[in-house]
């Protein structure tokens, strides 16, 4: 009478696989670093491990958290990360997600967890790129703080940050226009706008912006415009190494700097003119 044994067996299975999964997770960073040193096939080793090891299982239905539980979100993350590898071939589609799920030892039907237009895959990718950019900027910031590097002038900083972020698109550049259009679907606009603004925020934060006045808005608007236009230029740039794009970026950042200088110049000139007029008025009245 199998039905009677099912619940007990499942509990055992869950805890055993949880423990194994946790060990796997702990082992993984080690194997990847040893890969760098030894160049021997732990790379060949891992795909063999994949089908043998049972996919990590989840909490019991009670939903209690323990240290070694992988939530549905984490599994979805892993599937999407695995799917990125298939994007150049299949595009940002459910097929790429299905292939990604296959590499994790899951059925292709697991792609049904996501939307069929690939929105989640794209948003996941954008979010991952933003995280990488943050880490990069953080690292540079630390170096500057420790005095091991020079603090870059603002235009160079912005230029490097935008370039670093856009370079992350290069492996997927052929299918990126498709992704951009999907990000513009009304359903996705809140999420994509959110990601964009937080990325721009990050860059300005590490650039040392501490403004609390209207400048905050102007700075972010300007950098957003620079980023978006450069991204579009990159889409149809066929120069080697995208050097046309980087030149465009340089010019736009320079424009922005000139604009702000001009703006402050205009402001101070304006103030000077007003003061002169006031003085003249006082003189005349006396």
């Amino acid at each position, binding site marked *: *009478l199998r*039905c009677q044994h099912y619940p007990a067996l499942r509990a055992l299975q869950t805890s055993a696989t949880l423990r194994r999964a946790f060990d796997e997770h702990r082992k993984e960073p080690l194997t990847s670093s040893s890969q760098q040193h030894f160049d021997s096939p732990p790379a060949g080793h891992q795909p063999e491990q994949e089908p043998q090891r049972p*996919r990590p299982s989840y909490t019991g239905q009670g939903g209690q958290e323990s240290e070694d539980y992988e939530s*549905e979100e984490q599994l979805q993350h892993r599937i999407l990360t695995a799917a990125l590898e298939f994007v150049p071939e299949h595009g940002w589609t459910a097929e790429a997600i299905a292939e990604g799920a296959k590499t994790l*030892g899951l059925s292709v039907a697991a*792609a049904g967890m996501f939307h069929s237009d690939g929105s989640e895959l794209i948003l996941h990718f954008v979010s991952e790129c933003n995280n990488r950019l943050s880490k990069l900027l953080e690292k540079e910031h630390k170096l500057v703080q420790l005095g091991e590097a020079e603090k870059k002038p603002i235009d160079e900083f912005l230029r490097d940050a935008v370039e670093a972020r856009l370079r992350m698109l290069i492996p997927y550049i052929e299918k990126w226009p498709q992704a951009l259009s999907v990000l513009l679907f009304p359903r996705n606009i809140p999420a994509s706008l959110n990601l964009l603004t937080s990325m721009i925020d990050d860059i300005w934060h590490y650039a040392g912006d501490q403004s609390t006045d209207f400048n905050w808005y102007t700075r972010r608007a300007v950098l957003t415009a620079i980023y978006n236009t450069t991204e579009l230029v990159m889409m149809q740039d066929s120069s080697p190494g995208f050097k046309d794009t980087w030149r465009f970026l340089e010019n736009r950042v320079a424009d922005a700097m000139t604009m702000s200088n001009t703006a402050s110049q205009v402001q101070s000139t304006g103030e000077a003119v007003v003061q002169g007029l006031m003085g003249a008025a006082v003189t005349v009245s006396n």
Partner: protein
Amino acid sequence: CPALLARLAGAVRASRGLAAGPEMHFGFQTVTEEERREKIYQVFESVAKKYDVMNDSMTLGIHRVWKDILMHKMNPCPGTLLLDVAGGTGDIAFRFINYVRSVRQRQLQRKLKQHQNLSWQEIFESYQKDKFDSLGDSQVVVCDINREMLKVGKQKAQHLGYSKGLSWVLGNAEELPFDDDKFDVYTIAFGIRNVTRIDLALQEAYRVLKPGGRFLCLEFSHVSNPLLSRLYDLYSFQVIPVLGEVIAGDWKSYQYLVESIRQFPPQEELKAMIEDAGFFKVDYENLNFGIVAIHSGFKL
């Protein structure tokens, strides 16, 4: 043998004081488990030949749309292994084959587009190669407990010209004749209502699915809108049995049908049962205000 097991299971459960003993509902009547299974078998034995005609007339053809929506929700890619339980006359199976075939066509077209400047010879050869692959290794297994329904399904398949990637298996949803971790997708369309022990069927579904596999259930469900519910009840109890008598000469079977819809657990309850069987990301989508609902869960 399954009958014996079921009786033993019933006895063990009764001795443990679990569930509601061997008393079950058959429409609005109360019967034992055994009687229920037999009665349901007889119902489908008698409706088998007119099953499709009755479906069309009762739902005014809308059942086709429901099944199409189910297929779109599944969005299978070539290479998927589908188990269609209680699949009787093969509606879901045929739709699956059509869907996968068209996805495969698009895939091949895209691949060809990428290879520009091919000679005619090369194009011809690529079509030859992929001719054996028009389904891309996708397969559907139709499993039904009722021999008559399977017979009708096989005849339909022959008539419509479906042969590749299709197989017909006689089996009980509560005890599937398949190994563990075999299928990518498990569907049960308008069938789970007729299963006597739904929890067992769900457990079997969990067992035969691969990790990451998907469970999809299309079934009549509960309408919460009171006005619509009144109209629906009126239609169900006044019109459908009459149609059954006129078209199929079988009032009682269609009376059973509409009664069984009322007895079936509502959306949330079914969702909880699916979660109990071990599925994750369980969700449901109401079609036509709850007249029909698609439940989906993943074996993660």
